[in-house]
Every structure is written in C-alpha cells, then in structure tokens.
C-alpha cells in the first residue's frame, strides 16, 4: 500500500524536475520515474493491460529515444522556463476512454477475428527493421562488424 501512497507524489516531483533541470541529462533521467509511478497507479482502476503497455511504450521507447536525442547533438546546459504538467492526468483520461482492457478478451479477439491485420502488422515491423538498416548501413573498413556464423 505504501507504493500506491508514494507514487503520485513521486510522479509529480519527477515531472517538475524534468522541466526545471538545468542539465538535459538530468531531465532524461528524471523522466523515467514519471511513467513508472503513473503505471503503478493504473491497475487500481482495473486497467492491468494498460499499465504494462504504458511501461513498455513510455520507458522502453520514449525514454530511450530521448536519451539518444540528448546524446547526439552538442547540447548546452541552459535554463528553460515553461510549465507543462501533463503526465499525471494522462492515465486517468485514457482510463475513461476504454471500457474493457482485460488481457484475455483482447488476446481472443486479436488472434481470431483480427488475425490478418495482426499478421500484417508483424510483417510491417519486420520490413521496417530491415529497411531502417538497409537505408543507414555504412560498410567501411573502420567499422567493426560481428562475425555471426
């Protein structure tokens, strides 16, 4: 129960730190507790599937790409004055839109009635992965390659 008492507060504090931190690396680091704590609150309203998806999408994809953005260009440490507090109400709003999120029902429908779009989206992911590599691969002697076979 302590987890659910502390979560909103931690989410709020981390969100404020994301905006107000002078070092961009600190911003990205404090971005991670925000979806973690928010998704900790989601199972309380019965949205178990959403809690997992929230974690995967926000931390796995968004935080990783944010860290890439901070890593690559020559970012300077400066002050930013904006007030956008948007992470906390998001979970509640998404919870209002959907009526059921039971994982079993979703799986049932996804694998039978909507099987063709499901298969095609898996093919899309495959082609997108291969395509991204094809477009950006740079074969030169300086690049170290892994010998797979």
């Amino acid at each position, binding site marked *: 129960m302590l987890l659910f008492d502390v979560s909103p507060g931690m989410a709020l504090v981390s969100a404020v730190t994301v905006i107000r931190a002078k070092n961009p690396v600190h911003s990205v680091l404090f971005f991670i507790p925000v979806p973690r704590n928010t998704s900790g609150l989601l199972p309380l309203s019965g949205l178990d599937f959403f809690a997992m998806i929230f974690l995967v999408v926000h931390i796995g994809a968004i935080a990783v790409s944010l860290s890439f953005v901070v890593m690559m260009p020559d970012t300077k440490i400066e002050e930013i004055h904006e007030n956008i507090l948007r992470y906390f109400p998001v979970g509640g709003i998404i919870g209002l839109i959907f009526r059921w999120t039971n994982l079993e029902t979703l799986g049932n429908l996804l694998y*039978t*009635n909507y099987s*063709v*779009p499901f298969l095609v989206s898996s093919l*899309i992911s495959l*082609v997108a992965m291969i395509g991204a590599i094809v*477009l950006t691969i740079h074969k030169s002697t300086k690049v170290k390659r892994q010998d797979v076979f």
Partner: protein
Amino acid sequence: MNDINSFLSRLNSTINFSTILPEIILIVGLITIVITDLVNKGKNAIFLYKIFLISTLVSMGILFYQLISVIAFEDLYTNNIFNNLFRFFILICSFISVLLSVDYVLCSKISLAEFPLFKISAGLGGMILSCATNLITIYVSLEFLALSSCFLSGYTKRDIRSNEASMKFLLMSGASSSSLLYGFSLLYGFSDGQVQLDNIIDKISFSQYLPIICISAAFILAGTAFKLSLFPFHQWTPDVYEGSPTRVVAFFSVTSKVAALSLFTRLFRLIFPYLSNEWHIVVELLAISSMILGNLIAVTQRSFKRMLAYSSISQIGYVMIGILAADLENGYASMLTYTFIYIFMNLGTFARITPFSLRTGTNNIRDYAGLYMKDPVLTFSLVLCLLSLGGIPPLSGFFGKHYLFWHGWKAGLYISVTVALVTSVISIYYYLKIIKLMLTKTTNLVDTLKTYEKQKSLVSSVISTKLKSSVEMAMILCALASTLSGLFMDPIIKITRNTFF
C-alpha cells in the same frame, strides 16, 4: 487446457486459410529470401530474384484457381471477382517489374538482397489491400504498401535525389494516412463502433448525420487522392518519380496506383451510395483537372521520367471517368480493362527506359535522338508502347480509351469525356515528339549515344545470356500485351463485366 480447446475451436470456425493462400505463399517467399540471403552471406543474389519470381508465379496459379469460387473470410476478406482481379493485377505488376530489375544485380554496388524483399512486401500490401473489407485491415495494408515503397524509393542512398524522393514519399504517405484515418474514425464513431464496412452501412443513419458523413467522405477522398496522385494532391509525383531509381518507379507507378484504385472504388461504392451526386461532382472535377494539368505540363518536360510521371497523372484522370461511369449491367468493366492495359503500357515504357539509362546514364529526352540506328529493338518496342499510351489504333491503348469514353458518354459525363478527348490529342503530341526524335537519323549523334553499347553491360563482361535477356523478355511481353490485348478485347471485357458489388 479448456481455454486452449475453446480457442482452437473458435479459430477453426472463423478462419479459412485457403482464401489467403496466395498471400501466404508470398509471405513464405519473403521469409525464404531473408533466410537465403543470411545463409549465403550476400553471394549469389540472382537466386533471390528467382525465388521471388517462382513465388509470384505460384501465387498467380492459385489465384486463377480461386477466381472460380467466391469465399468470404470472416469479417476481413471477400473473394469476389473484383477483388481477385485486383490481386491478379498486382501480381502481374510485381512479376514484370522484377523481371526488369534483374540486371540491376550486376551493375551496382548497393546491397541487393533486400530489393526483392521490399518488392514482395509492397506486393503483399497491395494484395491484402485489394481484398480488405475491414477498416483496420485497410489501414494496416495501406501502411505496409507505403512503407515498403518508401524504402524502395530511397534505395540508392548515395544519390541525393533518391534521398529527396524518399523523404517526399514518406511525408506524402504520412499525410494521406492521417487524413484517411480521420475519415475512418468519423465512420467508426457514427456507426456505433463497427469496423466492418458492411456493418457500417447498416448502422449509420444517413439522413440524420449527413453533414458528418460528408466531412468523412471529404477526408477519405483526400487520403485516397494522395495515393492516386489526382489534382491537387499530385505535387509529390514528379519529384518522387524523377528521384527514385527507374526500376522502382516502374514498380510503384503501377502497383500503388492499382491498389489505391481498388481502395477508392470499394470505399466510395460501399459507404457513400447516398452521396452519389455529391462525390460524383467532386471526383469529376478532380479528374478533369488532373487530365488537363497532367497533359499540359508533360508537354514541357525535358526528362523522360518526369514526363512519364505527368502522363501517369493524366492516365489516372481517365480511369476516374471509368469509376464514375459504373452502372448495373457493366459494372466496373471499363475501369478494369483500362487498368489492365495501362499496367502493360506503363511497365513496357519503363522497361525500355531502364536499360537505356543504365547504358548511357541519362534521362534527357534529347539524348534519345537517333536511337533507331544503334538499337532498333529497343526503339521499336518503345514506339509501340508510347503509341499505345497515346491511344493510337490498332494498339490496345486505343481500345481501352474507346471503351472508357464510350461508357462515360453513356453515363452522361459529357464534359469529362470531351476534356478527356481533347487532352488525349495533346498527349499524342508529346509521345510522338519522342518517337520522331528516336526515328530520325541525325548526322551528329549525341555524345552519349556514341558510346552506346548494345550487347555489353557497363561494369562486368561476364554475364550469362539468360540474365541479359530477362529485361528483353519483359520488354517483349509488355509489347505483345500492349498490341494484342487490344485486338483480343472481348474475353477481357467479358471477365470484367460482372464486377458490380
């Protein structure tokens, strides 16, 4: 255990995999290509192309077998003749355009194994799109087609024009998908949560929600018009066609247009029958402006690929007349026959340009001068295909246009057919300009043609005769289809007649 049993019984009752067997064969071909390339470590890339061709042919065979029967694949697919014909068209497009690109293997240093992969995936996307009756399937397959075409157009990544073309294609497909989705979301909402196209018509009360349905129709029209490159959504076409590698342009100039045509027809026929008057007027306006704009601007072009891009915009304008002229006894016969002929004409023209640009490295029309002396086979087949595009009898382009305009006139589209006839005459001008340039003997040959070597390829001299002639095979196939399918129109028309759904 109980759960698994109930799941399996449910699976058996809802899925009938024999209906998507052609697509499954293409998927198996795709996976085989990836695995073979991995195992062979990049050598022997020709084998991958053979896998592609074999899988396409097997798919076509099974599709023929299925043309006879009509099976519905619960909520996602319907195998009526209309859909099957479009799947067949897309398979033909993929097959011939891969025949064109086999010699690419030997003459360039880019990674080549993924090229047939992207072509298979684009063909797959097009095939599933032709049969989709579910909003979700439509969107997913459209994205699949757009994504693969985007990768194809950016394939030669050292070339800046290819990067630019790929960027423009990406932006265009993003804009069209978002517009389409907005229209779909309105339909989904107002039909009380139905995704299946048939159920949407049942549930939406048209009289009550007419303004919203009009807004939805406008957004869907914008989304599909991007893909079809109708005016004013045509701005991306010339730049993308000029920048992408020519084999790729050949492929997606026919495939994505054919797939988008099937999407357009199905959506507007099924969902908006009560709005027939409104969207007929809008589509007529779009068709007229595409024809006028495409033909007039093509007159001034100096690059062959750009000229073909503008001419394809005007060809789609003609096809739109066919869609508008659909009636009960003939169905979409005129549009389908013209699409069939258009595929061969367009692919035939591109089949001639690719070896020419490979051997001389240029796309300027001026450089085609006097080609007759150096390569009579290429010249003659290019002449046939260009004349067919222009609509000169006895080639098939004439018969296709004649049938189309006759149906349009019968359906009462007097303004459109008049504009189409006038612009057809204008288009004959710029096709004949090229033919005249090629056939007249010039005493001072252009520098590029002086070094024109017919038999040898530019890079390597060790080519087996089988490969070199695959492009020739594609050329001959397209030339024959361009000429003979006009003379043998009747069986084609008989097949395409029964397509009103």
